[in-house]
């Protein structure tokens, strides 16, 4: 359909965990009422597994997914065209945490050999990042054990009772672990510097992506949505963690509102101010995935990074 | 069906059961017996000889292992139409009241609820259970359950009536009332009846012919023709000399068989 003929549609977005701080812009936009003001009807759904969220999107059940950018590359290797429309974060916002009692012997990714390393789920971004780290540090991924440790409480318990030696996770789990002294940050990918040091470039994480053909067919609606998101990103940049936390539903803070606020504070830095894709981001992602993902490795030469993201809408939103 | 076609025909009917230890046990061997329409045949025989098995073959519930079983001239492959079978065990539906149990056959045959109810009421009175219409079987005594089964079987007016020790659990007087009731019904319809009993008086008083079966495997040992005139008054008939003669004949024949059965049992053991 041509732009002019396009009907205003209501958009369904699946969020890979509505309550996760790294995906906070999604719910925040709704809470701030920016969707309504931009004139789009957006409903948010939640699904804890990123890959499952994308499968649902590809099946046409939802129009977009808020998840990690790296999946667009992965999907292209599987002949599915998905493009990032708004880039929320230019770093993963993840950290490799090492259990306090293992911190002495496990001091960098070089020591991964023979360890039990936690990821949220095999095939998730945390898995890709862990493998990427290992390969960059000369450890073959087959030399350590990948453990599905989930996120949140199960991850905490796994660190606590020795189920894993180290693991990749996000805030507020990181905050909880460091506050209680149960684990230390081994590799911090919540900041630009940390990410560059770990992966050799920026690794864009949290983003909104949609199937390419949907994007092509609904430019007006997507523009409105991009407008709303970019406003939110500006809001995050100009407000304190406490102010942001106050806008979110109280349930998201759980039983420890302070912890939630701290988590937002720690993670705030990772959000882009404008929704733009960092210039070297896609290439870092491709490099990491080439090392860690069979499908991408097999098709590395054929992958067209330009099709994995577009800055058209966020630029127009300025 | 011409007049000469027997209502029930068993020809060298044999029934073999798989046995407890994997072998086989012959319960009936070469049983040959014809029952004419309108004929009343009683069957006596030592306990465990194969009487119930014979009835189950005629009813079509069990297939014969060998030989022919025909009802109305047609080989029995399924349950023949218009057969009534009153089982030796309790077989009324535990989840139906007396009234519903008695009317069941009518309902199966498409009678309306109220029709079935009024006709079953009549039968409930005939078997002396008035007042117990709403009782469930577990609330009845053994003899009352038997009478429910009796009413249940006879209400459908079957052409072939198979009865396996129907009156065993009744007191003498009630039993005689039921016998009279059965004879009255049967006389009206011309149904063929095969009636298993251990009560020789009953066997002779009711029957046109008494079949004495041998110890297991059952075969027909003797058939005693009962030439007493009908209609009979069951209560009086047993004082007649002709009756006593018949009684002695059947008794003698049966006694031999029981002896054989016991000796066999002992030799098996």
């Amino acid at each position: 359909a041509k732009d002019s003929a396009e009907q205003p549609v209501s958009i369904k977005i699946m969020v890979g965990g509505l309550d996760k701080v790294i995906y906070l812009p999604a719910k925040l936009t709704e809470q701030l009422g920016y969707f309504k003001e931009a004139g789009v009807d957006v409903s948010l759904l939640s699904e804890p597994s990123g890959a499952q969220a994308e499968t649902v999107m590809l099946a046409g059940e939802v129009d977009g997914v808020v998840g990690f950018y790296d999946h667009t590359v992965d999907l292209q290797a599987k002949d599915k065209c998905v493009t990032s429309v708004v880039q929320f974060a230019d770093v993963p916002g993840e950290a490799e945490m090492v259990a306090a009692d293992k911190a002495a012997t496990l001091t960098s990714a070089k020591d991964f050999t023979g360890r039990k390393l936690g990821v949220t789920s095999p095939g998730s971004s945390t898995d890709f990042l862990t493998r990427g780290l290992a390969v960059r540090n000369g450890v073959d991924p087959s030399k350590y054990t990948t453990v599905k440790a989930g996120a949140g409480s199960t991850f905490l318990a796994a660190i606590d009772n020795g189920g894993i030696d180290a693991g990749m996770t996000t805030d507020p789990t990181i905050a909880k672990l460091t506050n209680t002294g149960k684990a230390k940050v081994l590799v911090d990918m919540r900041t630009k510097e940390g990410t560059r040091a770990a992966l050799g470039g920026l690794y864009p994480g949290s983003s909104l992506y949609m199937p390419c053909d949907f994007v092509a067919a609904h430019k007006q609606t997507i523009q409105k949505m991009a407008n709303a998101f970019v406003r939110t990103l500006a809001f995050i940049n100009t407000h304190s963690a406490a102010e942001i936390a106050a806008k979110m539903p109280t349930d998201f803070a759980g039983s420890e509102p302070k912890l939630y606020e701290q988590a937002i504070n720690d993670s705030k830095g990772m959000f882009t101010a404008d929704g733009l894709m960092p210039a070297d981001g896609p290439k870092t992602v491709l490099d990491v995935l080439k090392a860690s993902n069979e499908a991408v490795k097999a098709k590395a030469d054929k992958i067209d990074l330009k099709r994995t993201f577009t800055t058209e809408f966020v630029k127009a939103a300025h | 069906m011409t007049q000469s076609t027997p209502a029930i025909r068993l020809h060298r009917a044999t029934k073999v059961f798989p046995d407890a230890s994997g072998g086989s046990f012959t319960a009936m061997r070469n049983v040959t017996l014809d029952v004419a329409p309108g004929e009343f045949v009683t069957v006596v025989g030592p306990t465990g000889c194969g009487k119930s098995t014979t009835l189950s073959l005629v009813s079509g519930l069990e297939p014969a292992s060998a030989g022919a079983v025909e009802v109305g001239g047609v080989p029995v492959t399924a349950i023949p139409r218009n057969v009534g079978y009153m089982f030796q065990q309790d077989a009324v539906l535990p989840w139906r009241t007396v009234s519903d149990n008695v009317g069941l056959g009518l309902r199966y045959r498409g009678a309306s609820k109220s029709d079935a109810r009024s006709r079953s009421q009549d039968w409930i009175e005939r078997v002396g259970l008035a007042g117990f219409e709403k009782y469930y079987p577990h609330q009845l005594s053994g003899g009352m359950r038997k009478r429910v089964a009796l009413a249940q079987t006879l209400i459908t007016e079957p052409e072939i009536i198979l009865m396996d020790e129907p009156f065993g659990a009744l007191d003498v007087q009630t039993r005689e009332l039921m016998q009279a009731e059965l004879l009255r019904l049967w006389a009206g319809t011309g149904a063929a009846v095969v009636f298993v009993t251990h009560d020789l008086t009953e066997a002779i008083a009711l029957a046109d012919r008494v079949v004495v079966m041998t110890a297991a495997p059952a075969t027909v040992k003797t058939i005693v023709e009962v030439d007493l005139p009908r209609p009979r008054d069951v209560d009086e008939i047993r004082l007649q000399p002709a009756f006593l003669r018949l009684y002695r004949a059947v008794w003698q024949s049966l006694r031999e068989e029981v002896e054989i059965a016991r000796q066999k049992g002992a030799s098996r053991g």
Partner: protein
Amino acid sequence: MAELVLTETPVLRAVRGPRRLRVHLTRLALVALWLGSWELASTYWIDPFFYSKPSAIWHKLVVWFTEGTASGSVWAQISVTLQEAVWGFVLGAVTGVVMGVLLGRARFLADVLAPFIKAANAIPRIVLASLFVIWFGLGMSSKVATAFVLVFFGVFFNAFQGAREVSKVVDDNARILGASRWQLLGTVVLPSATSWILASLHTAFGFALIGAIVGEYAGADKGLGLLIAQSQGAFDAPGIYAAMIITTVLALLAESVLTVVERRLTRWQPRQT
């Protein structure tokens, strides 16, 4: 073992009153004991971050019922989950009973289909839940489908076995009395299998709720499953337990309805003493 009063001395009607009271009191005492020790333990010994504590859960429930949840009124969540569960339960139970009874009486069909049904029963439902989202969409139907597959098998296997356990002589009797296939099913097989079917229904509604919640886990915008997922993400142990308690109460309510139905259907049985 002193408590194990086998049903040796039949109890007279008159004793029922005080007995009932004793039952209720014992239950109450158990609940109090359990909540009390939990509260105490989580105050002094164990980490309420993982195990929460009754007072916090109570507080969470109060908040939900007075102020609502992140995704709207708590009643809305309950009603969504309940609808999904009820649909899944009804469809699953009806299909399970019908197929169970039919296959229980049709040897050949049963022999042919048995391995397939048993195989289907072994398919991990959690995987199915995510497949259902793809097949049936994100709406209610995918959750109903998940609830359905959880309900169906338990009911099916019990109805199947129940249909096979019909007393042979009662069955024979009905057939002699002229029952057609369908009449036999209605008047003999079904009543006889009733206790079997009812026994499976007691677990079934619980499973239907689980199905609805698992389905919501796989993608939803409303429902108790979402509340749980959200609470898990927010380290909100009281939220997890509060949602579980709501589910449990729903199941118990359904159970009490079932008990009434059961009492009606088994009126013909000797009263158990």
